[in-house]
């Protein structure tokens, strides 16, 4: 790693520099978004590029660890790791971030002078999220988690004079802090039980398990459970999901896609990192819990989405259900990571695209989007209507849309590895059956959305044309949804290597 010595932290560096540049430009050149906007865009694109470079490096030279001091041996704990998981995550985060940023472009205009702050928060949150997946150190994971969370608390409440936005922000903040505390306590208990804060490397948790036979795992198990709670909260898996609908509904529509998508990416990557890599020897203990979380998420998310009348809430609950499907993949342990990646990376674009469309329909600063807002969308704006149809079909898991392949991949994975509890060779078959059943129930509201969009509008007024960046974001999301539905195999082959080391 001669030339690329800084490569492992390039993602964060680019974003940090980008954020500072945005703030600086805003101060120096003026707060008009045209001045600092390009800098932000460049930062997101640069981050994605950094991810690509990392990916290339990983696939040619193998995974690498980053140490602050030169010449530190592997025996010491690394703080940054660059492997398939983090590199792939960097690409996905970068791209989703970029698209999400474009989707938030109209919102940026709405918040006026505070635009640079908003965008720099988004940029930094992305860096924090990547930290979660690019480190083997539990404290650093927590640091990344908090970095991202705190910026999202602010973003959610950015329209502070809106009641919804404020409430959303407060709820997110309070519950998020609670979950963070739980997660952190989990880290502390794990530290107590294993004597290490690092997942692997020198003197790590993995080492601990390979050298010690744990006879009294009580505290360790409690620690694991609490860490799982923290992550489940972040990815909005039931029963830790309750914040999600309220927050997504209240938060400014233009930025919800960004928040919802990226946090899921990082959350699941962290899950893969902590449990798939660090606690891999305990896999038989934690997969049943993941399975239960998955089951509850699928059921709760789907059933609650059925009875919503607000599209944002619907999508939020559908996000809960999707968390369940993704967790289903993770029941296979580390073998589930490729399926998880496929799901998360495609779903993230759908989320961004979906909320971007909602922001064009009801305004990027809206905090409520009743289903009736979508009435006749296809007629009022064929472009948005059809693209939203694709996105929703993608979410619903219809074949030839990415969601379908993702689901199948996830389900296949869950059944491919023998399950410890209830012990059998066919993996979590019951979970898969539940999953497909819930997919069907979910069709009820997805098709309700589609039906509403295709119905005759009450007034024939054409929809106000959305800004070019937002349209671009929607188009990219829809294209990705369709493209990876029809041609999924490049991504399938790619995620095969997106493992944690």
């Amino acid at each position, binding site marked *: 790693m001669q030339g690329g010595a800084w490569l492992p932290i390039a993602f964060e560096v680019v974003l940090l520099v980008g954020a500072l540049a945005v703030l600086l430009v805003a101060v120096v050149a003026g707060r008009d978004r045209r001045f600092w906007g390009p800098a932000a865009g460049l930062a997101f694109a640069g981050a994605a590029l950094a991810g690509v470079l990392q990916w290339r490096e990983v696939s040619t030279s193998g995974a690498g660890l980053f140490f602050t001091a030169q010449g530190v041996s592997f025996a010491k704990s690394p703080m940054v790791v660059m492997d398939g998981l983090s590199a792939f995550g960097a690409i996905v985060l970068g791209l989703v971030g970029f698209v999400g940023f474009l989707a938030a472009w109209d919102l940026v205009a709405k918040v006026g002078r505070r635009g640079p702050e908003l965008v720099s928060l988004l940029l930094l949150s992305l860096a924090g999220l990547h930290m979660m997946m690019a480190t083997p150190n539990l404290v650093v994971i927590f640091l990344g988690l908090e970095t991202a969370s705190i910026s999202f608390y602010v973003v959610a409440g950015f329209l502070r004079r809106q009641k919804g936005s404020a409430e959303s922000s407060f709820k997110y903040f309070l519950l998020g802090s609670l979950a963070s505390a739980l997660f952190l306590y989990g880290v502390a208990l794990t530290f107590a039980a294993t004597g290490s804060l690092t997942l692997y490397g020198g003197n790590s948790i993995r080492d601990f398990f390979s050298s010690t036979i744990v006879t009294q795992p009580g505290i360790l198990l409690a620690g694991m459970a609490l860490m799982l709670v923290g992550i489940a909260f972040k990815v909005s898996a039931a029963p830790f999901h*309750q914040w999600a609908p309220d927050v997504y509904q209240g938060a400014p529509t233009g930025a919800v896609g960004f928040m919802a998508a990226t946090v899921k990416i990082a959350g699941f990557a962290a899950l893969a990192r902590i449990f798939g890599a660090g606690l891999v020897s305990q896999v038989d203990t*934690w997969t049943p819990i993941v399975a239960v979380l998955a089951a509850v998420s699928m059921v709760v998310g789907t059933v*609650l989405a059925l009875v919503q009348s607000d599209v944002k809430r619907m999508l939020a609950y559908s996000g809960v259900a999707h968390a369940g499907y993704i967790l289903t993949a993770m029941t296979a342990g580390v073998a589930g990571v490729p399926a998880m990646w496929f799901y998360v990376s495609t779903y993230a674009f759908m989320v961004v695209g979906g909320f971007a469309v909602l922001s064009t329909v009801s305004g990027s600063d809206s905090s409520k989007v009743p289903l009736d807002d979508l009435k006749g969308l296809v007629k009022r704006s064929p472009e948005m209507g059809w693209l939203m149809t694709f996105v929703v079909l993608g979410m619903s898991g219809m074949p030839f849309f990415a969601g379908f392949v993702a689901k199948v991949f996830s389900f296949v994975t869950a059944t491919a590895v023998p399950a410890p509890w209830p012990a059998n060779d066919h993996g979590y078959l019951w979970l898969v059956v539940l999953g497909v059943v819930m997919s069907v129930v979910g069709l009820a509201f997805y098709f309700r959305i589609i039906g509403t969009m295709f119905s005759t509008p009450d007034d024939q007024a054409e929809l106000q044309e959305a800004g070019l960046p937002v349209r671009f974001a929607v188009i990219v999301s829809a294209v990705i949804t369709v493209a990876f539905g029809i041609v999924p195999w490049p991504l399938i082959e790619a995620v095969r290597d997106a493992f944690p080391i």
Partner: protein
Amino acid sequence: MTDFLWLLVALPLAGAALNLILGKRIGEPRSGWFGFGLIAISFVIGFGASLGFFAGTSNPQTIYLFSWIPAVGADAAILWDPLSALLTMIVTGVGALIHLYSIGYMHGDDRYPRFFAFLNLFIASMMILVLASNFAVMFVGWELVGLSSYLLISFWFTKPEAAAAGKKAFVVNRIGDWGFLVALMLIFMTFGTFDFRTIFENAPAMFGVGAGTITAITLLLFVGAAGKSAQIPLYVWLPDAMEGPTPVSALIHAATMVTAGVFMMARSAVLFELAPVSAGVVAVVGTLTALLAAVIAVAQTDIKRVLAYSTISQLGYMVLGIGVGAYAAGVFHLTTHAMFKALLFLGAGSVIHALANQQDMRKMGALRKAMPITFITMAAAWLAISGMFPFSGFWSKDEVLAAAFARGGAWLILYVIGLGVALITAFYMTRLFAMTFLGSSRWDEGVTPHESPRTMTVPLVVLGLGTVFLGLFNTPARHAFEHFLEPAFSGVEQVEGLSIGLISTLAVVAVIVAIVGIIIGLRRYNTEVLPDETGAFWRRALAAFGVDDLYGRFLVAPGKAVADWWASVVDPKVVDGAVHGIAKGAIGGGERARAVQSGQVRWYAAVVAIGAVALVVFLLVLGGGF
């Protein structure tokens, strides 16, 4: 000539198609003549091909046309033997005459070409039935005649009765067809083929007399035959079928289609020989049908309904003939009946035509003078059906009764009943004849009866000749008819012949019975004033003993009630109810879960905390932490 036999089907079919599509352009009389011509040509072809059988020089043969359903080995092929030849001649012959008759009868109808199209279609169907070389193809014809019959009965569909009658005919026929269909399934399972020749050659070797399988097959076949040939309990459609134009009644419901059942059973004679039980059932049902229909016929006032019940009654005779094993006799009666019954119907049609569509016999009378040709030909038919020597009906009916008598034992009961029916027949036919042509005129005002046009009377005359002389082909002295048919019944044991003396005695008895019936009838009805017929018996018989009502009350209504119940309760409430229940459950669950989502941040925190505790406990339990 046998190379052209396929034309027997093709020509009428082509006629039907052309008349259907181009009929309007061809115009009124021409389309009729066109249809008639095709049938006449068919008759010529059929007759020509039969010559070999008359001469006794040719053997039966099967002619392969094309493979139809290979899976069940059903080929479209023609079985050309005397039986099919005979039926071909009857169908095309009588058919041609009726076409001719219709040219005049249907004059002025809006849908004149269509009528001939349907008639042609009927002939084609009948030919498929008759010429079939296997049960499957026979079934095709069997159903298609049902279709043609439906089309023709409900030809005047604007009359609700006509439409209902057509439907009733088709549906009741289909009930019989069900039996036939099941018979076919059993036949295929038993023999692995539908081919007549293969089955009839193998059946005696495979099964002994009385074998269960064959009994089942034959009984089922009889169910089919009962539908087509209007036997108890499926005869109810035939009287209603009189709603159709009269030529239709003559052709379909007297001469040809209704005899299909008899034909089919005769065709399956080998099987019936192996199943004495079935034969007994057939004989008993035939006799009872003959009796019941005759009794009902006595009280009818509509001229066509009398004839309809008379047809049912005569069909009973034919079926009796089959049942007692006198296949040739049964078929012989079929042949003569085709003549005189067609004649009766056409004559009736002529009368109805003359009286401006009046069908009630109480409004007729004294037509002798006005319609001489009709009167004379009808008289021949009347005597023939009454069993007067030497008209054709006498010979054929006698043959059947003699066969029943010859079986002896319990079969004598059937003979006695048959004889009784002959008496009743003579009586009610005399009643019909007298009320129509004799006595005083009771026409509606303003009606001036006149003889029908030439196209209508020519067929009457031709049929009249047949009625008079056809019987002479098959006298006890000279069984020309039976010899002609012999190759068709090659696998069947012949009924032991009675001595000539006994036969003569029976014949004399039969003639006496007929004369008695006629005399009673003439004395009662050849009067100025009609006798009062409003007594209990007359009312019940007129209403056909309420069998239709019975069916309506005990079959149709409950069936419909069940269907209604299924459609209005089971489907929406039970089947769909379960579905809606699930949906409601999901949405109800969602609504309830929504309440949990209270918006209270403390509550959310509590859920998170409880979840965390639960997760910790769960993991501890699972991982052995406790």
